[in-house]
């Protein structure tokens, strides 16, 4: 289990981390969320000793992390980086060797992952000859080559087409199912909701929300309301009679309203039906996007 507690880090006058923490068990997949500049990348770098925190603890299975433990971790940094002129297979095998694999092990693992990610035919191509999406796949393979116990991925889905997203998601699910601890950051919250049981949302270097996605939704004091109205007169006037509205938006057809969970909707529904037709009505727990917006605003 990875346990990060109370990390603090200042860069000069800038506070990057202000008590950040997270926990990922083996077999768990954690979505690590936050707006740009919240401290996600700094936290991930700290796991690999690339940033030295001013204070706080990072442990793996209860032990402090050193160089030897890190060899059992896999990392995909936000800024992708591989040797552009090196062949895909050689590149992966080299990284496997650096993580302590034997020559044969590393070479076989490189073949396995290139095949698994649909790049078997490109294995002798230099990285720079591959498309952006394929480079991303090699980058994922670089994080997985040594069969790590912990997988740390910084924005693994950024810039991927839907098919590549599918491949990536499947690979991550499989790793978690094999008992690996997986933590990744992303701005694609639908995807996170789909993949992760647990999330941590940080803002300005602090944890603002953490827990099981389903519990967070149930416990949230807000609800997500979607309406499609066909009214004579002004729909906005009608909406204005709602109590406890947090935010509204309109896409030309449907109104989306974020509303207090204890608001009384019965009166509103009656008024809406009087005014015209209510073509669509849904009242649900908030989406992860709603929770995120609430947490960081």
């Amino acid at each position: 289990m990875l346990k990060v507690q109370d990390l603090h880090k200042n860069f000069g006058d800038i506070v990057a981390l202000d008590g950040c923490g997270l926990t990922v068990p083996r077999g768990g997949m954690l979505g690590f969320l936050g707006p740009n500049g919240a401290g996600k990348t700094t936290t991930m770098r700290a796991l690999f000793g690339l940033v030295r925190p001013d204070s706080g603890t990072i442990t793996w299975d209860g032990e402090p992390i050193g160089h030897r433990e890190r060899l059992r971790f896999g990392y995909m940094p936000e800024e992708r980086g591989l040797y552009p002129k090196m062949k895909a297979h050689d590149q992966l095998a080299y990284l496997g060797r650096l993580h302590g694999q034997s020559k044969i092990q590393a070479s076989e693992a490189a073949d396995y992952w290139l095949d698994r990610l649909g790049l078997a035919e490109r294995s002798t191509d230099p990285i720079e000859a591959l498309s952006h999406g394929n480079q991303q796949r090699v980058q994922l393979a670089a994080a997985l080559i040594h069969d790590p116990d912990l997988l740390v991925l910084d924005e693994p889905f950024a810039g991927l087409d839907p098919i590549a997203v599918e491949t990536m998601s499947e690979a991550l699910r499989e790793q978690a199912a094999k008992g690996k601890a997986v933590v990744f950051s992303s701005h694609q919250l639908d995807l996170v909701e789909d993949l992760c049981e647990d999330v941590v949302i940080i803002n300005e270097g602090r944890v603002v929300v953490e827990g099981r996605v389903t519990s967070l939704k149930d416990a949230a004091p807000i609800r997500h309301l979607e309406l499609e109205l066909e009214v004579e007169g002004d729909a906005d006037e009608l909406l204005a009679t709602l109590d406890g509205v947090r935010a509204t938006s309109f896409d030309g057809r449907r109104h989306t309203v974020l509303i207090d969970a204890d608001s009384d909707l019965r009166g509103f529904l009656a008024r809406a039906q009087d005014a015209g037709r209510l073509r669509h009505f849904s009242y649900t727990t908030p989406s992860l996007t709603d929770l995120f917006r609430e947490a960081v605003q």
Partner: protein
Amino acid sequence: MTSLGTMWEIARREIRERGRSKAYLLTSLITLLLVIGIIVVPTFIGREADEHTVGSIGEGNAEIVQAAEQIGNAAVEPGDDPNVVIEIVVFEDRETANAALESGEIDVLLVDGEEMVTEGGTGFFGSSLARLLQRGAATVELEKLVAESGEAATEVIDVMTSDPLELSSLSGEDPSDETGTIIAYVGLMLLYVAILLYGTWILTGVTEEKTNRVVEVLLSSVKPWQLLAGKIMGIGLLGIGQFGLTIVVAAVAIQITGAFDLPELPIEGVINLLVWFVLGFLLYAVIFGAAGSLASRMEDAQTAALPVTALAVIGFFVSITSLDNPDGLLATVGTFVPLTAPFVVPVRAALGSIEVWEYVLAVLITIGTIVGMVFVAGRVYAGGILQFGGKIKLRDAWRSAGQ
């Protein structure tokens, strides 16, 4: 994997990838062709004699020219082609002679065996002819003086061009043996080129890893000093390979063509050069590595390395001075300054004008500096390598690694 294993793995990658790169193969090939060309081509062309034309007005000029020619060819074995050929053109009056001098038809004009006229300044090559003629004239004068004693002119010239003093040295070495000078001179050139060339590889290699961001992936499993040390090891071996091959090919080419009288290389001379190549390369490589870590873009890398390159240039010039005056103050100071020592010490050693204690002390100082630099530059590297965006200040890199 052990630390050494990791470093070796990094070194191997450098050797494999760089060794196969077009740039490496091309520079190796060009160097080889150049060396072979320098050695082989002259043997086909053969040696050309210096040909001069001297104008003559009045009497007494022919003897001077003849004596000058004899002096110029004093070192030529009988039966070989001459080094110097001087042709005489006789003029009746001064005007035509001056016109010929101006048009370049003649190089120099001699008048009555007493006056020498040139067109303008003699220039570097013209002066060698002028000097020969002066010596020729002096010989003719001398000949007149000794004429009463009955000696012939050729004998006077023999005496003048010989080294009548028997030469010996306290150390027992043959002082006329120029092997030491050749090793010093060639060795200095090789050291300078090699240290700067391979140092620049380190510099650009380090910056490259930052530019393409692969360094973050690498440093998630490798310590910064391992990465730097592995890189230096790989490029160092690659450099020794390239230079070694060049030297072997040069030696073989000389053997086959017989282009030069190859002095028998003394083992100490070679060891001396090798020791200082390794020391000098290590010292500069570590500093170049730190400089490279301070730049985020290739364009900034050269700027970051400028102070280092400047030091190497200073070392080179101090060393050139030492070639002439290996016991001078500058040479002595340069021996104990770590960044100039790799250029100065091997030259002084090759010339046989360095005390054993000086040599040993210089080696120790340099090794000490390398060890110190590994810590200093290693810390700068560790701090600079993960900071992106623009040029990183030395102080910031130092501090950030210390935190």
